[in-house]
């Protein structure tokens, strides 16, 4: 789920930037430093939408750098256990399939794919029901439930399932043609 939240960060600025454009410099540095990062607590920082407050700077001993506490609003993407969302399938193999929901990767193991769906290898590996009515392949859109999250220093991985009511394929690229 995407959220709009307020975060705080201590920004260090070199004295050469002190001048009439100090705030601009601070904001552009903030965007450069923060956008695209990921933390386990807040998820992926997608975009900064505004700077609420720049606090008083504190000169650091020895270096001359100044630390400013900056409060900013941003759009974050944070997956939760138990959340249901839609995702695009990126890779299918006999172990299961990978899907992407925005910046986050979700793996759905073949144990968590309904039992009536079988893996079919070939040019376009896919999972298909015995009657061939439902097919999961690359670029399919699926609705899945996140059952586990694992946080890396710079990324969040999720484990998902489509073995539940109202989950599964929404549209597959083959049928759309």
């Amino acid at each position, binding site marked *: *789920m*995407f*959220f*709009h*939240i307020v*975060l*705080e*960060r*201590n920004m260090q600025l070199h004295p050469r930037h002190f001048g009439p454009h100090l705030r601009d410099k601070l904001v552009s540095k903030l965007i450069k430093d923060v*956008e*695209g*990062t*990921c*933390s*386990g*607590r807040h998820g*992926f*920082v*997608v*975009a900064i*939408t505004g700077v609420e407050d720049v606090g008083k700077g*504190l000169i*650091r001993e020895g270096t001359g750098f100044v*630390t400013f506490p900056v409060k900013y609003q941003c*759009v974050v*993407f*944070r997956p*939760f*256990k*138990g*959340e*249901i*969302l*839609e995702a*695009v399938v990126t890779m299918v*193999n006999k*172990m*299961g399939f990978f899907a*992407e*929901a*925005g*910046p986050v990767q979700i*793996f759905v*193991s073949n144990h968590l794919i309904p039992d009536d769906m079988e893996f079919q290898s070939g040019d376009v590996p896919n999972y298909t029901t015995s009657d061939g009515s439902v097919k999961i392949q690359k670029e399919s*859109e699926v*609705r899945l439930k*996140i059952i586990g*999250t*694992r*946080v*890396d*220093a710079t990324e969040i*991985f999720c484990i998902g399932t489509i073995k*539940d*009511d*109202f989950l599964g394929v929404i549209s597959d690229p083959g049928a759309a043609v």
Partner: protein
Amino acid sequence: MEEFFWVRAGPVAHRLVLTSVSSSLSHASPNRLRRPPRFGVAREQSSRMSGEEEENAAELKIGEEFLKAKCLMNCEVAIILEHKYEQIQQHASSDSDPSSQVSQVFEKSLQYVKRFSRYKNPDAVRQVRETLSRYGLAEFELCTLGNLCPDTSGEATALVPSLKSAGRFVGDAGNDKIDKMLNDLSLIKKFE
């Protein structure tokens, strides 16, 4: 593939977090150490340890901070990101910077929300939020419903089990209320 997935996310992740804790401590000024770091990595680690078991979006357990925060539906995010993307492009053309200046996270998110936006029109998006907010939903529930647009009350409660909690939508009357809510949503979609 699966094995690789877990191995990479397992001990390596742990070690990475630990090293980042120690590095953040060594960089921290004494001033900062005395009060508890509000958004520091150290706190992040400990809160995750205790809170991870309890996290469950189906029961609306998503942590105090996110429960109070404003959730965004995919269509709202699409409006925000597209606006920002245009701004960046304008900037880039005048500075002769490549337009691929945006982060990968930004780009992936933009593609994702464009693909999964139920409502394209900003007015419709506003209407959806207004309509749903009349039913006393939590932010997270509101956005899940707005994103997934279930067709029936059965589907809605399966996707958002927390609807049935706190005695808001109990029994047949509750189901009728949910159906009415979903009907309102489909009308907005129809007249968009």
